[in-house]
C-alpha cells in the first residue's frame, strides 16, 4: 500500500446521537448501503461502519450509538475524539427534540471544541404527523452553531447531503489540531512472525 495515499486520506470519526428510534441506524444504513427497513431493529449490534468519499478524500468512521443510551449512560468514549457528531431527532416526536438538545449541551460541555455538529430532523416524510416545526429547529440550530437539515432515511431525502456537507466542513488535515508528537499504535494479532532478535536486555 502506498504510504502517500494513506497519508493524504483523512479519517474522521463521526458519531450519531439521539433518542432511541429517531432513526440513527436507518440514516447510516441509507447512507452507507442505500437501504431502508420499515422494521429496523433497535441497535445492539454494529459497532461502527466506514464509508469513504473519494472525491473529498475523507474516510468516515461512523459510530452508531446503541443500547446504553436507554438510560443515558452513554460512555464519553463514543464522542471523545470525534471530528463530527450528528444529533438526530424525529420530527414527529417533541421528546426526541428535547433529548437532542440535551445531547448538544453535553457535547458543548464535554466534547471536542472543534467538533462539527449537525442536527438532523429525521422522518421528514411523515409531514402529516409533524410535531416539531422546521422554524423552531432552525432557530435552535442557528443559536448553537449547528448545521441543520431535515432528512428522511425512508425516502433518502437529504441523507447524502447531510454526510457530504459534514465532510466538506471538516478541517483540512494541515489545519487540524497538531497531532501529538508520537504516532498511535494499532494492536493486532498477526501470524506473520517478526523474526527479529536482539542481543540486548
Amino acid at each position, binding site marked *: 500500500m502506498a504510504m502517500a495515499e494513506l497519508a493524504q486520506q483523512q479519517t474522521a470519526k463521526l458519531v450519531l446521537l439521539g433518542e432511541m428510534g429517531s432513526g440513527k441506524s436507518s440514516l447510516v444504513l441509507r447512507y452507507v448501503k442505500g437501504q431502508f427497513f420499515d422494521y429496523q431493529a433497535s441497535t445492539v449490534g454494529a459497532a461502527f461502519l466506514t464509508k469513504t468519499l473519494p472525491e473529498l478524500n475523507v474516510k468516515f468512521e461512523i459510530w452508531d450509538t446503541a443500547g446504553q443510551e436507554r438510560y443515558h449512560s452513554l460512555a*464519553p*468514549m463514543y464522542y*471523545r475524539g470525534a471530528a463530527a457528531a450528528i444529533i438526530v431527532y424525529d420530527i414527529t416526536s417533541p421528546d426526541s427534540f428535547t433529548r437532542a438538545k440535551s445531547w448538544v449541551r453535553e457535547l458543548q460541555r464535554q466534547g471536542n471544541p472543534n467538533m462539527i455538529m449537525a442536527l438532523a430532523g429525521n422522518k421528514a416524510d411523515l409531514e402529516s404527523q409533524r410535531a416539531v416545526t422546521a422554524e423552531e429547529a432552525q432557530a435552535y440550530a442557528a443559536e448553537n452553531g449547528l448545521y441543520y437539515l431535515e432528512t428522511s432515511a425512508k425516502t433518502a431525502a437529504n441523507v447524502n447531503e447531510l454526510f457530504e456537507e459534514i465532510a466538506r466542513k471538516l478541517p483540512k488535515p494541515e489545519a487540524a489540531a497538531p*497531532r501529538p508528537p508520537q504516532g498511535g499504535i*494499532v494492536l*493486532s494479532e498477526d501470524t506473520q512472525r517478526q523474526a527479529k532478535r536482539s*542481543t540486548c536486555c
Partner: protein
Amino acid sequence: MNEEYDAIVLGTGLKECIISGLLSVDKKKVLHIDRNNYYGGESASLSLTQLYERFRAGQQPPASLGASRDYNVDMVPKFMMANGKLVRVLLHTDVVKYLEFKAVDGSYVLQKGKIHKVPANDSEALRSGLMGLFEKRRARSFFLYVQDYEEADPKTHKGLDLRRMTMADLYKHFDLTEDTQDFIGHALGLHRDDAYLTQPALATVLKVKLYHESLFRGGRGGVLKVKLYHESLFRYEGLNSPYLYPRYGLGELPQAFARLSAVYGGTYMLNQPGVEVMYENGVAVGIKNGADTARSKLVVGDPSYFAGRVRVVGKVVRAIAIMNHPIPNTDNAHSVQIILPQKQTGRKSDMYVFCCSYAHNVASKDKWLAFVSTTMETSNPEAELSAGMALLGPVEEKFIEVRDICEPLEDGSKDKAYISTGYDATTHFETTVEDVLDMYRRITGRDLDLTAKDPAQVEA
C-alpha cells in the same frame, strides 16, 4: 428495571466492565449500575472538575490549568505490557478496536540517587550509565543466556538447573553487582520486593524474557505483533519501552468493555447513588434502587458496594501532580515510568513514578501528569513519597490520597456475591486480569480460553 437478570454488576471499574462484557458475550442478561455519573469507578480517569470535586470540594480549578475536559486523570495509573495478559484479553474480545494506543517513551530505574533509562536496544545498552564497562560485559552474557534459554531445550540451560538454583545464585554465577541485580529484578523482572532472590531463578528468567519479547515481539511464539505507525515514518524496530498506554487515559478501558456489553444487550445505568445489594438469608438476590428492585441469580461488584463482606488488606498512597514540564532527565519524555527499587530508597516496597502528557490526551496543552505511588509503610504517607516526588521538579498542583485495598471475605459460592479485589499498589495489570479471570471462573464454573485467538495455536 423491575426485571430479572442473570447477573447484576455494581461499579464500572475495569474489572467489573470486563466481567459484564464477558458475561454479555456469553448471552447472559446483564444489568450494570454505578453510583457515580461517570464510568470507571476506582479506575476512572477524571476531568479537572471531577478531580477538584474529589480532592478540593468547593474549589474551582485555576484557569492556568486549562480546560477541564482536556483532562483524563487516571485514578489508578498503569501502563500495559505489549505482550501482557490485558492486551490478550483486549484482542480476545475484540474490544481493542475501540481504543488507540501509544508506545510509552521510556522506562527508567533509580540507581544511587540518579535515574537511568532501561535500555531498549544494543546501542542504548552500550551508552547506558547503569553499569561500568566490565559489568556491561558480564550483564551481556547474562542477557544472552536468558534470551537463548528455552525451558524445553536442555542444551540452552548450559548445565544450570534454574528450577533448583535461586536467583541470587544465578546472579552470582554471572558475577553481577547488587545494582545490576536491582535493575534486572525490579525494572525488567518487575518484582515488587527482593523475595524473589531466594526463590528458584526460573520464574525471574522467564519474566525477563517476557520483558524482552514485549520489547521486540521477536522470540519464539512471539504471538503479538505491534505495528507502530509513525505519522510518515513506518518503524518496524523495537519500541522504546515494552509499555503501551491508551489515548484519553485508562478510563477508556472500562468504557470499551462496557460498550462490548451494551453491544451484546447489557443495560447500563449510571448516576444511581442509592443502589444497594439486596440479600435474603445472607444470599445476594438482586439490588434495591429507591423504590425499584431488580432480581438476579448473582451480584458482581467492587468492594465499595459490599460493606461487611470485605476486609482491608493494605493501603496505597498516591500523589497526583500537574506540571508544565516533563520529568527532568527523561529526555523530555511524554510518557515514562520510573521504578525506585526498595533497596535504593531504603524501603520495604518499591515506589513507582508514572508520567504522561497532553500528547496522550490526558491533560491540557503543554501539561504533564505525574503520579507517585507505593504501598504505605508508615503513618506519614506524604513523607514516604519524597524520594519519588523529588524526581519531578516543580509542580503546579498536587493531590495526595491514601486508599484502602479491600478483598472479599468469601468467594461468592455461598452468598452469590462476587466481589473484586481492590487495585493494589503495583498498578500492573497482571493481578487485575488474574482477578477477573478468577471471578469469571467462580461465576461460570469454567475458564476463559484466552488462547482461542492465539495465532500460535491456530497455526499449530
